[in-house]
């Protein structure tokens, strides 16, 4: 469960000085259990789209449904992993991961339930009692991922989650994410400006363009579910990568 339908979605930000069309007439169907990556340069509305799906913003027109129900605000069925550090620093790793089940009333305060299962999945079993400040940036992202998963969402929304990490940590995070998804499949919407990241992770890559902010094209990624890091060296991967890069460069030059 977790199919997302986006229909005629538009978002306009108005202030007294100007109106910004952050998103124009966007349509997209995301199947249950599908991994969709959204790429585009900054200012193309990809984060706006994610915030609309998360329910942090409400659409100016159009609608988003998850399993047929219209999104009307944030909810536990749609967990979000942000680029910014959103792990609660005053809670231990374990308490962070238990936060979702606890506030949903599925877990008593102080109880841990299947928290350790999720910590195992992301490889942080030894750090259950640590405070986030004792962890590296990559490890905090793992906590964030485990926390999102433990809250039992249908859909996982990731907004450039690994954008602030170095290349090696980033690759390790890709593999960790793949492992978690394999263990427990979810519908995933992953926003990034890294084409390689999008092609490595996604079943489909949605290319968005700025001014007007809209979906330019959708690319099927032909690599199947099992991928290792070396796939990036293949001709097929590089061709797709170049193709997307060209598209983005074109629209970027048009806009700039």
């Amino acid at each position, binding site marked *: 469960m977790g199919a997302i339908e986006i229909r005629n979605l538009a978002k306009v930000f108005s202030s007294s000085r100007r109106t910004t069309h952050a998103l124009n007439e966007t349509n997209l169907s995301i199947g249950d259990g599908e991994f969709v990556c959204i790429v585009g340069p900054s200012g193309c509305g990809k984060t706006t789209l994610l915030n609309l799906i998360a329910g942090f913003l409400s659409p100016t027109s159009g609608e988003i449904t998850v399993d047929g129900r219209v999104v009307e605000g944030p909810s536990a069925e749609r*967990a979000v992993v942000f680029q910014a550090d959103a792990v609660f620093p005053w809670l231990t790793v374990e308490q962070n991961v238990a936060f979702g089940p606890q506030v949903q009333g599925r877990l008593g305060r102080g109880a841990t339930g299947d928290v350790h299962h999720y910590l195992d999945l992301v490889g942080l079993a030894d750090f259950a009692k640590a405070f986030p*400040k004792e962890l590296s940036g990559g490890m905090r992202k793992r906590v964030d991922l485990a926390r999102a998963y433990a809250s039992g*969402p249908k859909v996982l929304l990731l907004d450039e989650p690994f954008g602030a990490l170095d290349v090696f940590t980033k690759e390790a995070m890709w593999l960790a994410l793949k492992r978690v998804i394999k263990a427990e499949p979810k519908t995933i919407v992953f926003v990034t400006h890294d084409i390689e990241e999008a092609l490595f992770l996604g079943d489909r890559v949605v290319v968005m363009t700025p001014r007007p902010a809209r979906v330019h094209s959708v690319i099927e990624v032909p690599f199947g579910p099992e991928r290792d890091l070396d796939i990036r060296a293949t001709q097929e991967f590089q061709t797709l990568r170049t193709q997307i890069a060209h598209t983005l460069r074109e629209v970027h030059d048009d806009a700039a």
Partner: protein
Amino acid sequence: MTPRDTSRARRRITPGPWVSIGVVLLVLVLWWVATSGTEWIRPLYFPTPESVGAAATTLGSTLAKDAGATLLRVLVSWLGGSALGVVVGLLMARSTWVMYALNPLIEALRPVPPVALIPFVILWFGIGDDGKIFLGALGCFMVMVVNTTVAVGNVPTVYRQAAQSLGAQPNTVYRRVLLPAIVPEILSGLRIGSALAFAVIVAAEFVGADVGIGRLIMQASRTLNTPVVLLGTVVVAIMAVLVDQVTTRVSRHVTRWAATG
């Protein structure tokens, strides 16, 4: 680390608490040398350590009573005023109505030194505990209202959004995200507040009080009894340092999660 680095580190003298203790001892010795030892400074301008010690023994239980009265006023006004400040600050941060209603009053009163209100306070409350506690509490309240509203504004939006998307209802977000997130700033407001409370309360005791360190200092100064004046000052300093130490210890434990601990 290379062995050369280690040997260098061993030779270098590393700073630590011993520096602070050393400086305090040095000041005490200099004090003694400048007054008793050489009489560079006349005892009237700065009394000798012996005379301050003698004053403490002579005063005995009176001193304890004065110190106790001051400390009690400080603690009540500090904790009471700060608690009220946090509550009002939270209300202002939560409701735009409350913010618009209270902000001009608070912004107008904030720069006014509480001691400027002493004449009114004596008129309203007399020279007992109430007026002094009111003044101290007012000072701490102002510090805490501002600290709290700023702290709430500083809570990153992602914390709130993350909590919501993990299934937290608005009340839960408030209780389990907003309140814990502002604790470090509340505690630093408490530290500022305790120093302020001592200053305001002792000043209020100068102007009129039946008991308290401020009264002791003022009375002694009328007869140029400078050993007692200095003794009173030292007692205030010691009490203030002790209160601050306890606050710091407690806050270090409570906010051991914070990045700078």
